């Protein structure tokens, strides 16, 4: 399954990329699976996504929780808690 992942704000800077296209292994079906997959890269990925820090995930521009299922072609966004207004 291929998806697009977007990063914003501090995470965009820390990961040094605004977006990437990913071919997910068969076992990765949910947001939780995707986060584990990315954290397995180690370094900043592990620190930000598996280090107890708070972040938010949206699928196709809707906020979701970690049990949400991924669909092929989905636009997934990972970002820090919002601070607008």
């Amino acid at each position, binding site marked *: 399954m291929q998806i697009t992942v977007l990063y*914003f704000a501090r995470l965009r800077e820390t990961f040094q990329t605004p977006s990437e296209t990913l071919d997910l292994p068969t076992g990765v079906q949910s947001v939780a699976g995707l986060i584990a997959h990315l954290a397995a890269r180690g370094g900043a990925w592990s620190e930000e996504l598996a280090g107890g820090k708070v972040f938010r995930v*949206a699928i196709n*521009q809707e906020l979701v929780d970690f049990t949400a299922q991924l669909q092929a072609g989905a636009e997934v966004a990972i*970002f*820090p808690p919002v*601070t607008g*207004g």
Partner: protein
Amino acid sequence: MDKLPQARIAISVQTEDFDLGHEADVLSAGDRGIGAMVSFVGLVRDLNLAEDVVALELEHYPGMTEKALLGIAEEAAVRWPLNAVRIVHRVGRLHPGERIVLVLTASPHRHAAYEANTFIMDFLKTRAPFWKKEWTPDGPRWVEARDSDLSAAARWHQVVSKQYGNTDHD
């Protein structure tokens, strides 16, 4: 309940400043059912900035931002009898004293206009994908989210809206 037409909702995300008086006039023009209009204007204030901060920069998630703001406005229009909602949120670089955000709510009833406006701001601050960065001579730093904003938004889950009778004229 009054028979309200579906609330008119308009959302803008823009780098330009907005004109409060103009936006209020546009919102109320031709709608004689409006008895109360509440506006919120958020400004960059210098008290919350460190001495050395020269500007804020607002990043957002184009596409999701507009959807999130529309969803928040639509939820308010389900909870309260609203004639119209207007939200303008600026992005890009802003300096102390500049306007960041405008929320306008119009209703036959004053408490509906107040509560819907407060609700929209509380949810905007927790669900709309904007991020603030402070610029200093030593470089930039991201603003951290605040627990008080999360608890402000959470309290609405407990709120049961009061009924607005048609005698409560503004």
